[in-house]
């Protein structure tokens, strides 16, 4: 046991080291990773040095000119172009005609690394002799003020012959009358100076709006050119330019002089002298050239036009193999040659036919030999390749593919179809399911079509008073409440109706009150007219109507005793019960000493008299005198009021 513990104590450090997070895993030791070659290459490049102390230089080149002669005002910074807030417009003295030229940035080697150099060119022309000084001014560079020093220009009628003219670029465009999409060769030349030394250019740019510069077709050469009657060596930079918009387009060129340094292949011919030492990287530019660009005509366009402009020709197409089976693939190749660059010419779309399945061709631009090409185009030929699958064995040739180009010289479209190629199609040894090949574009899933901007709507379509929905407007809840109110009213009406059906006396009393009011109005009219019989009849009718609901009975069936039985007593409990057999009771017999009872007795007497008079007028032989009832109108009104109250 003790031995085991001692052994454990010795093994403990080793185990702890093995369980440590940084402990290497057991097994073979890994091979150290090789450094990334790309990273190594980047690390070996000289660094880019962005100076913190930005300085600016300004000069006129040449500093001495004749009146009207061009001098380039050149301002240079050792800073990135993006960091310079160049004043726009540039303030210029009135005696000096300044026009903006090129501006750009180049990285030059400064001993320990690359240093940016940014130049701004202005073309200056002075009309009067004298000394012109462009004063110093301040430019913001990365938020800091940098003073551009003053520059001095001497305008004299006889400048010293030792002052060389400023180096200028020459922009040579093969044709300045173009069509949109027509490629044209452009040559930028930098002739040698008076000393005969030739310099190359770096970062050549063709500037202008709506222009496409094909960087893939550039080439450079140094060759002798004839200038002002003298043959001088000149550096040439050629490329292809394509105008993208119709109208007047301005084109200019600029570049930095690079001494004897050049990038890419260059052709040198003739005798020349190249300067040694480090290049100066001077920004040189040229006067702009105006292009007259026209749109392609719409009329006369032929099938198969894919933007080819120039003068084109076709090599005989070839089909390989020439003997195929149904369902096998053959390759049709045809080379198109032209007098311009065809590097970006797309292949004409193949025709749609049931007998062939054709995949649109791949294009391959064929570079022309650099020298000897008449127009100097770098890619004056292009080869279209189509993959074709015959679907029947009855075919004897490939289908013709429509193709055309636009001839700018004649301003017309010229048809140049790719002709058929004879071949032999054999039946397939194995039956193939050609249904899918017949309709290769059919998509059972119904894939969505590529959306395009639709045309205008012909009519305003569905309109609304507002974009705000109706439920957000104030009147909408009221409108929605209207049916609810209607239903509530109907429900209330139904409740009332059911109540009246359970209590018909309510209706009878209401009707009796209404009839009583009518009879009372008739009674008053009769009283005012002094018509005693009518007064008596109306009074009796009113009493009958007021008392009928209490029995209930038809009003016309009531007699005076019925009314007397309902006359209100002072103490209804004390009043004797009404008995139809005993007839009307005498109120005076009940309590003659009570004044109210006496009044009731007078009231009863009044009722009796009314009924007596009306009964006599109705049933008697001679009409009774009713005139005595007219003075009783107030008492009768009181009685009727009491009866009406009893109806409520």
């Amino acid at each position, binding site marked *: 046991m003790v031995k085991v513990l001692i052994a454990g104590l010795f093994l403990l450090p080793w185990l702890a080291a093995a369980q440590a997070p940084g402990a290497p895993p057991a097994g073979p030791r890994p091979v150290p990773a090789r450094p990334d070659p790309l990273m190594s290459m980047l690390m070996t490049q000289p660094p880019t040095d962005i100076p913190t102390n930005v300085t600016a230089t300004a000069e006129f080149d040449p500093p001495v000119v004749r009146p009207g002669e061009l001098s380039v005002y050149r301002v240079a910074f050792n800073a990135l172009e993006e960091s310079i807030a160049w004043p726009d417009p540039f303030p210029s003295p009135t005696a000096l005609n300044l026009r903006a030229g090129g501006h750009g940035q180049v990285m030059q080697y400064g001993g320990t690394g690359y240093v940016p150099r940014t130049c701004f060119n202005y073309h200056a022309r002075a009309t009067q002799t004298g000394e012109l000084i462009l004063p110093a001014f301040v430019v913001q560079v990365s938020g800091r003020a940098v003073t551009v020093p003053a520059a001095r220009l001497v305008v004299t009628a006889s400048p010293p012959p030792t002052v060389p003219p400023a180096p200028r670029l020459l922009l040579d465009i093969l044709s300045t009358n173009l069509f949109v999409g027509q490629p044209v060769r452009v040559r930028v030349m930098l002739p040698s100076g008076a000393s005969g030394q030739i310099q190359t250019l770096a970062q050549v740019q063709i500037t202008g709006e709506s222009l496409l510069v094909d960087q893939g077709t550039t080439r450079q050469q140094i060759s002798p050119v004839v200038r002002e009657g003298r043959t001088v060596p000149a550096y040439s930079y050629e490329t292809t330019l394509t105008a993208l918009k119709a109208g007047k387009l301005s084109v200019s060129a600029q570049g930095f002089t690079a001494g004897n340094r050049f990038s890419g292949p260059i052709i040198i011919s003739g005798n020349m002298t190249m300067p040694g030492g480090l290049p100066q990287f001077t920004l040189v530019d040229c006067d702009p050239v105006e292009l007259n660009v026209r749109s392609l005509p719409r009329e006369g366009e032929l099938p198969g036009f894919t933007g080819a402009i120039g003068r084109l020709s076709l090599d005989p197409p070839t089909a390989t193999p020439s003997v195929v089976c149904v369902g096998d693939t053959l390759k049709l190749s045809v080379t198109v040659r032209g007098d311009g660059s065809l590097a970006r010419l797309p292949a004409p779309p193949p025709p749609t036919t049931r007998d062939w399945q054709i995949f649109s061709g791949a294009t391959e631009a064929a570079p022309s030999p650099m020298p000897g090409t008449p127009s100097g185009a770098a890619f004056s030929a292009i080869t279209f390749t189509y993959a074709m699958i015959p679907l029947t064995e009855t075919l004897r040739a490939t289908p013709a593919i429509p193709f055309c180009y636009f001839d700018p010289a004649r301003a017309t479209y010229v048809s140049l179809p790719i002709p058929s190629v004879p071949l032999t199609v054999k039946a397939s040894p194995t039956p193939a399911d050609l249904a899918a090949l017949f309709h290769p574009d059919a998509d059972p899933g119904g894939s969505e079509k590529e*959306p*395009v*901007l*639709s*045309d*205008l*709507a*012909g*009519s*305003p*379509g*569905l*309109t*609304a*008073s*507002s*974009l*705000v*929905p*109706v*439920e*957000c407007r104030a009147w*909408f809840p009221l*409108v*929605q409440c*209207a*049916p*609810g109110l*209607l*239903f509530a009213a*109907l*429900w209330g*009406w*139904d409740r009332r*109706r059911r109540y*009246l059906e359970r209590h*018909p006396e309510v*209706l009878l009393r209401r009707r009796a009150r209404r009839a009583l009011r009518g009879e009372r109005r008739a009674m008053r009219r009769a009283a005012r007219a002094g018509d005693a019989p009518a007064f008596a009849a109306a009074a009796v009718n009113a009493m009958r109507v007021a008392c009928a609901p209490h029995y209930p009975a038809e009003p016309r069936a009531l007699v005076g005793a019925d009314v007397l039985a309902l006359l209100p007593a002072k103490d209804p409990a004390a009043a004797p019960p009404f008995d139809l057999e005993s007839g009307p009771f005498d109120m005076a017999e009940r309590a003659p000493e009570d004044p109210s009872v006496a009044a009731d007795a007078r009231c009863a007497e009044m009722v009796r008299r009314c009924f007596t008079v009306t009964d006599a007028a109705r049933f008697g032989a001679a009409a009774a005198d009713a005139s005595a009832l007219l003075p009783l109108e107030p008492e009768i009104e009181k009685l009727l009021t009491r009866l009406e109250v009893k109806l409520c």
Partner: protein
Amino acid sequence: MLAGLCQSLAATWAGSSVLASRWRRGFGMGVVGTIVLGMVLLSSAAARAGVSPVVSEGPSGNQSAAAGRPLSAAALFREGVEAYRGGDCAGAGRAFRESAARQPASGTLQNLGNAEWLRGQSGLAILAWEQALWLDPLNGSARNNLRFARKNVQLEAPELAWYEVISTWLPMNYWPWITGASLWFAVGIGLLPGIFRLRRATWHQALAAVGLMVFLLSVPAHLGVLSRTRLGFVLQKDTLLRLTPTQQGQVITRLAAGDPARIERFRAGFVLVRTSRSLGWIEADRFALICPR
């Protein structure tokens, strides 16, 4: 109908049971028909007021600059079409915008979107097409244009909840009317037979159930319309989404023109919007709702 109602009431109050019963039955049927017809007429009248297929030809306050005559929405529409055909997209946009302000119409807004798109105003174009669909979800051209625009400028469509998707099946003003009409129809069918003492029939219950079902189905869409009123679009590109409603607020991200967002609240020239990824404040004049407030 009013005379029938009066006679019925008079007969009821007069206590003439036979006559009252006859009039009650006729009155009950008449009132049911009146309510249903009234609801239909009310719905159609309000719909005509709210969503009318007829172009308003009435005079407007706008004056033609050339002739000094008032221009109607239809005249402005035609003016916009002519300007568009002539290549004057700015003029077409102005005319379509005035026409839409005078009488919002799906086709007018679709054309406004086309004009704004050709002017490079993708935010305004998307807003106009969305408003065209807001008025008429069956406008296939506006829907196609939205797909086209969003594919071109790499924008996402607004994310809609399920009830909002349902609300896009019909024009926005149809849902509240359907909701209200179906509710009161169900209530009426359940209430009126008892009031008018009609014998309870199976078809009464069936119609009430149908009305209730339509009501319940239309309520989510109705709510979807309401929630979609908070949906809007960024009008200008590189709109800054800030953490606070101030010009110095920390920038969370930049929104592209046409990006959808839902408005949360307003504050001093800023709106708090919720995009699919974040929540923040943007300047109010750089954002517009489908349904302007």
